[in-house]
């Protein structure tokens, strides 16, 4: 049985079409996901992300524990009120999930994790945490994302507070509100945590201020164009972050830091990567699909698409492909029986509303 977020009734009222995602009944779109996509690139969209998990960790040794738990190094967070993206790895280097760690104090952190994996993540974290670290799953909070270039103006109007002028990946808290300048669209924007009971009221204020309700359909094409992986789809426990285009998020800088998965990743680096994740782009308006096979010039299998779709901002088919190393392009996919050439690109495809890709 699917769960619902506190905004379910509001979605119904707004005419949402629903889809199951991560065990939740979530809005897919409210009429047209392509229009919603353009609205986020052009102005501002509001997303219900209350299905995601929030874990608060605090107590002596929390920072040290996170330096062991996460592939990225929380010691790189310069000060309280700043955040860091990281993978959560298994011992063998497989990606259990990705998350954002927010530093609220010396030994006080908040982790925001994905919906489908939140219970597993919590169990994993508890199993590895020392007794001095107190872990609280914050199901009493709900999460909204306000994304798009008009977000700062709109937030200032609907919800004035100390978050005005935050830098990217910074956050501020006031009473029960937690506002971070983070997101999953490649646009400016905010993610806002508030008591679940206050979520609908806040959503209505942001909608009244001009944000357009935006569903998971647009969220997927926005994050694809932004070159952002979806946990469980572009990466999972069977692959490492190095073969998921996330090498930059793994910090080997401190040789003393023995994070979970380090030995396996160091060995993988030494041996050389077998596969890598790249952006792929079609030359025309079309739709790439998850799990399509990528073929080399002689028609031999060379990898698969981990995500695929139609990118409204580029008006072309695009996606991510995990390809065998060494690369041996040119590559193509078969669409309705016809070979369509794939251009390999460095991600992201789009950033802040503009094409940003470069040939690989």
């Amino acid at each position, binding site marked *: 049985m699917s769960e619902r977020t506190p905004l379910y009734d509001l979605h119904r009222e707004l005419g949402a*079409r629903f889809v199951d995602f991560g065990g939740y009944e979530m809005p*897919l*779109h409210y009429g*047209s*996901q*392509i229009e919603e996509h353009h609205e986020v690139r052009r102005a501002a969209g509001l997303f219900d992300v209350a299905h995601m998990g929030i874990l608060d960790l605090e107590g002596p040794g929390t920072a040290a524990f996170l330096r062991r738990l996460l592939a990225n190094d929380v010691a790189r967070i310069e000060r309280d009120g700043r955040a860091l993206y990281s993978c959560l790895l298994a011992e063998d280097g497989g990606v259990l999930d990705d998350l954002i760690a927010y530093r609220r104090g010396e030994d006080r952190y908040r982790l925001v994790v994905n919906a489908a994996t939140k219970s597993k993540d919590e169990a994993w974290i508890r199993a590895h945490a020392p007794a001095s670290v107190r872990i609280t799953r914050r199901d009493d909070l709900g999460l909204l994302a306000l994304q798009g270039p008009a977000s700062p103006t709109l937030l200032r109007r609907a919800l004035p507070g100390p978050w005005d002028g935050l830098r990217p990946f910074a956050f501020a808290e006031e009473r029960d509100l937690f506002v971070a300048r983070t997101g999953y669209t490649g646009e400016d924007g905010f993610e806002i945590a508030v008591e679940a009971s206050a979520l609908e009221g806040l959503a209505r204020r942001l909608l009244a201020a001009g944000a357009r309700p935006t569903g998971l*359909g647009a969220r997927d*094409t926005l994050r694809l164009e932004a070159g952002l992986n979806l946990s469980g789809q572009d990466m999972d426990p069977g692959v490492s972050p190095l073969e998921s285009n996330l090498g930059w998020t793994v910090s080997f800088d401190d040789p003393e830091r023995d994070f979970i998965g380090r030995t396996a990743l160091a060995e993988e680096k030494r041996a050389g990567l077998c596969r890598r994740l790249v952006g792929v782009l079609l030359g025309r*308006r*079309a*739709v790439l699909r998850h799990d399509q096979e990528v073929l080399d010039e002689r028609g031999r299998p060379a990898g698969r698409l981990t995500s695929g*779709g*139609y990118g409204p901002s580029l008006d072309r088919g695009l996606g991510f492909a995990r390809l065998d190393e060494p690369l041996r392009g040119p590559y193509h996919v078969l669409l*309705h029986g016809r070979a369509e050439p794939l251009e390999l690109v460095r991600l992201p495809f789009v950033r802040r509303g503009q094409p940003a890709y470069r040939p690989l």
Partner: protein
Amino acid sequence: MNSPPSDRRYTRTHEWLRAENDGTYLLGITDHAQSALGDVVFVEVKPAGTTVEAGGSVAVVESVKAASDVYTPFAAEIVAANADLAQRPEVLNQDPYGDGWILRLKPADGSDPGAGLLDASSYSRSLEDAHD
């Protein structure tokens, strides 16, 4: 959702066919079909002049969600595609029974264009039954 107009016939695979004065038929997909597909990204129609058997595919509608074949219920020749859809595929979502028509068909000699098709009320009932 728009109810199906009564000036045309329907298939169980959610196409509509409207007889034109010149003996050809316009073919499109129903409001139910476009809604299930979601935003249409492009429509690919087989070239004009192609002849297709009854039940054969005449076009593919590719949406954000899926690629879906469009079938002719009777043997026919493809006369023309709706050129507007190449530029503005969203018209298929916005006006599936009007400007969002997909192609024009000429029934093959000896084919029976009406055979096995549903009228608007039967088609509506078939949708309700499918919901039960």
